[in-house]
């Protein structure tokens, strides 16, 4: 029963419009997420491709994989690597964010782009970089051996431990971006209080600042774990020679194991992966029940002040420097060097092997040029569109606590749990067999849609983290002067989360630049993107071109990142 006041407000406001708009947003999101997913589920219950006339319903696919010892090995390895990388990435990402965002470390601004580098370079390329730089005969390995006169370098790349460490390090930016976005909105009064009471900067970080941004940290931990289960490029390059399988590479192996592609087996594995991630989602939701008490943008927000590090500046700088050297400089310099030489390894005089041939070839090959243009487009324009869509979904959920909110919360987490390779395949099916979309299959739109859905969870978390930090009292203030829901969203909430949205755009730009597996099956003339092109070239073994294209990718993104950072700095002033 509406109160008279409520009735008055309702007649004066476009509230029903908001409800319609919300319903539409939910419907579109649900279709985009559940359509391809249900196709995968259906496929896993068949004995042949779903479009094949000879298909039959049955559990044969599950029977096969559960009897396959490789499946269990892959499952175990996935859990080991995911756990390891989460343990490494979350604390390190949080600490780096604290150092960068809250302290007075001199020259730290220069480091920021480098910290973000691993998140916009395709993991496949980074792994390749590690092989070239620090593998058994890598540039750095050989230099190390010559410098210290040892036979063997004290590190190895092809083990589960090494994979967990490398995956952990390369996923630090995922945590970092979430943590900084949250720290940015944190008043510095509590930190100052702790400092005055005699706590060291490390203690401030671990016991005050990071616990205050727990929602972001938890989200990023769960996401890193997700990403760990889904790891593909890294174990493909580093695990394959030793036969170390993880879930995604096991799935990939099924493409060929039976001679013809076994979609039903691949789909069954994908369903198993989704089944693993769901309990995690439930756990995460429980942990976040009390998220409201973390609201830190208040009507009476204090001034932001940087924490003086004092003698702690050196350890902080050392941590930052070591991270950047190992995670960024080593693999990227490996790639860069590889792009300019014809051959490498033991006893090769690099100065004799120098060449520009690879770049010349890329420049004269229309497919590669198109891939470069498309990659820029999908990152900049596509990224902005994607953030707009995510924001719409965010608002559909904001300050609501009904069943639909819970539904959307689960929904957005689902696609990320599906391995990109198979999500891409499912989207190819959709674009092939769903008539309204078929004309768009060979346009970059198909790749954009697939990317946006696959990375939904990732982007949504950033947006809802920002939204969650806006204390309800500000919106209630608007409401008390008679603003409608739409007006509040547009004029109060949206401006407040603008830094968060810009950060999201930057983040989405970066992940779109580096995404590779999702686009593999959508690759066609017109839809080339560098990531998928790299996988294809890697398969063919054109490794010099892979190195050259990767370097071009890194440079392009570097330029984009530079511009974005400048923009970001201005906004902060």
């Amino acid at each position, binding site marked *: 029963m509406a109160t008279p006041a409520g009735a008055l407000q309702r007649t004066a406001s476009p509230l029903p419009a908001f409800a319609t708009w919300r319903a539409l947003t939910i419907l579109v999101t649900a279709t985009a997420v559940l359509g391809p997913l249900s196709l995968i589920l259906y496929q896993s219950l068949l004995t042949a491709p779903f479009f094949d006339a000879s298909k039959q319903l049955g559990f044969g696919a599950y029977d096969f994989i559960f009897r396959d010892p490789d499946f269990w090995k892959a499952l175990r390895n996935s859990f080991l690597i995911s756990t390891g990388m989460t343990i490494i990435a979350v604390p390190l990402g949080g600490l780096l964010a604290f150092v960068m965002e809250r302290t007075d470390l001199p020259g730290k601004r220069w480091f920021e782009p480098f910290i973000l580098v691993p998140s916009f370079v395709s993991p496949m390329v980074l792994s390749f970089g590690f092989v070239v730089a620090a593998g058994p005969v890598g540039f750095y390995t050989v230099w190390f051996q010559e410098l210290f006169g040892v036979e063997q370098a004290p590190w190895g790349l092809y083990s589960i431990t090494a994979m967990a460490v490398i995956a952990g390090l390369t996923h630090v930016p995922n945590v970092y971006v979430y943590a900084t976005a949250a720290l940015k909105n944190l008043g510095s009064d509590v930190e100052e209080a702790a400092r005055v009471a005699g706590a060291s900067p490390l203690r401030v970080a671990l016991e005050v600042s990071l616990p205050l941004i727990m929602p972001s940290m938890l989200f990023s931990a769960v996401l890193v774990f997700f990403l760990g289960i889904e790891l593909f490029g890294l174990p493909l390059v580093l695990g394959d020679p030793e036969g170390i399988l993880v879930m995604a590479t096991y799935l990939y192996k099924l493409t060929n194991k039976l001679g013809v592609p076994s979609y039903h087996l691949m789909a069954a594995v994908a369903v198993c992966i989704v089944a693993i991630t769901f309990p995690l989602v439930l756990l995460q939701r429980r942990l976040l029940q009390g998220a409201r008490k973390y609201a830190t943008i208040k009507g009476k927000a204090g001034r932001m002040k940087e924490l003086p590090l004092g003698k702690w500046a050196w350890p902080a700088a050392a941590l930052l420097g070591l991270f950047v050297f190992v995670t960024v400089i080593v693999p990227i310099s490996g790639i860069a060097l590889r792009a300019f030489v014809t051959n490498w390894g033991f006893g090769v005089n690099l100065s004799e092997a120098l060449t520009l041939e690879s770049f010349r070839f890329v420049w004269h*090959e229309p497919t590669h040029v198109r891939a470069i243009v498309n990659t820029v487009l999908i990152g900049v324009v596509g990224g902005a569109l994607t953030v707009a869509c995510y924001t719409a979904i965010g608002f559909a959920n904001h300050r609501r606590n009904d069943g639909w909110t819970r539904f959307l919360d689960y929904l957005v987490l689902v696609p990320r749990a599906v391995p990109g390779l198979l999500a891409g395949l499912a989207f190819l099916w959709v674009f092939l067999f769903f008539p309204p979309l078929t004309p768009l299959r060979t346009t970059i739109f198909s790749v954009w849609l697939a990317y946006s859905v696959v990375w939904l969870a990732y982007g949504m978390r950033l947006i809802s983290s920002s939204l969650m930090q806006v204390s309800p009292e500000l919106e209630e203030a608007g409401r008390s002067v008679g603003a409608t829901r739409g007006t509040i969203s547009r004029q109060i909430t949206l401006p407040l989360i603008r830094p968060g949205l810009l950060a999201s755009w930057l983040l989405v730009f970066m992940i779109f630049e580096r995404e590779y597996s999702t686009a593999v099956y959508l690759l066609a003339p017109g839809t080339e993107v560098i990531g998928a092109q790299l996988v294809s070239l890697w398969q*063919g073994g054109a490794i010099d071109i892979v190195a050259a294209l990767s370097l071009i990718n890194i440079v392009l993104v570097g330029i984009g990142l530079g511009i974005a950072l400048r923009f970001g700095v201005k906004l902060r002033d």
Partner: protein
Amino acid sequence: MRNWLKCAAGALALAPLVVVAQVPAGYPADYAKTVEAAKKEGKVVVYSALDTKAAQPLIKDFSALYPDVKVEYNDMNSTEMYNRYIAEAASGQGSADIMWSSAMDLQVKLVDEGKALAYKSPEQAKLPAWAHYKDQAYGTTFEPTVFIYNKRLVTGDDIPHDHAGFAKIINSKPDKFKGKVTSFDIEKSGVGFMMVVQDTKYFPGLKDLEKGFGATSYKVYSSTGNMLEKVSSGEHIIGYNILGSYALVRAKKDPNLGVSMPKDYALVLSRVMFIGKQAKNPNAAKLFLDYILSQRGQKLIGGEVELFALRDDVDAEYTAGKLKKEMGDKLKPIPIGSEITAYLDKDKRLQFINDWKAGVASGAK
């Protein structure tokens, strides 16, 4: 003189005679109709496992020959190609006009399933009997499998010259070769699988090789490019069942890489081409297929493309003819026919893989 020719050509272009002039020598007269129809279609869509870089000379030359037919060339790996083709065919949206792949078994399977267009190429008589199938699928190259080694790290007696020798070398020095031997992952690479199945026909000592692989914990990859890179860099030093076409090209400019042609026998792989049943540009596809099989196309394949020309009557740097002079009947082409699809049967394939793994495991200590 040249002007006069231009005028004549201009005049001819207006006359129907020029159509006849475009029909290659020895082709049936009604081929002109195919050419005309192809011009109207205006393009040919090619799916190929040969990367664009390598295929560029062929595309250029074909465009010079038929300027009105544009080549839309898509390179992808052979499994992806098969996946895409069956999905697109099932959706009824039309797919590739030309399928060109090194996964010979998958290509033959598609033909057997009626997904290829029947077309008897006028060039068919010039091909060896094993290289065409049901007037639908055609072999286009003659690529031997070879051994590779790192020239700086493998010398003298350690360079393998035949299959038994390869097995003996790695079995006798397991310490030197520990972790340094590489070959195809037969679970991931259809081509790699097909080759070891063929090995069972010609190499009685295959079990010893499997043992050697186990004893040295050999490293497996799904693409030739990776193996070449790793052997060149010295991470691995010796490789088995490598596609000779790629290896020889790289060895030419890479001083680290050595290639050894097996003296006892060498398997020969031929990229299989057919026209799609639902091809939207069937006439343009016919021109493309005939061009690839023609002397002109084959000469480029054996030359700039740096694969091996299949036809005996072609003179180029890499040709079947030259190989045959050197190796005679030691060359064992993998036949294009139902023999090679036998192992696409799930149970048979898994059995083979398990036997292979057991053989490898028996050598590991």
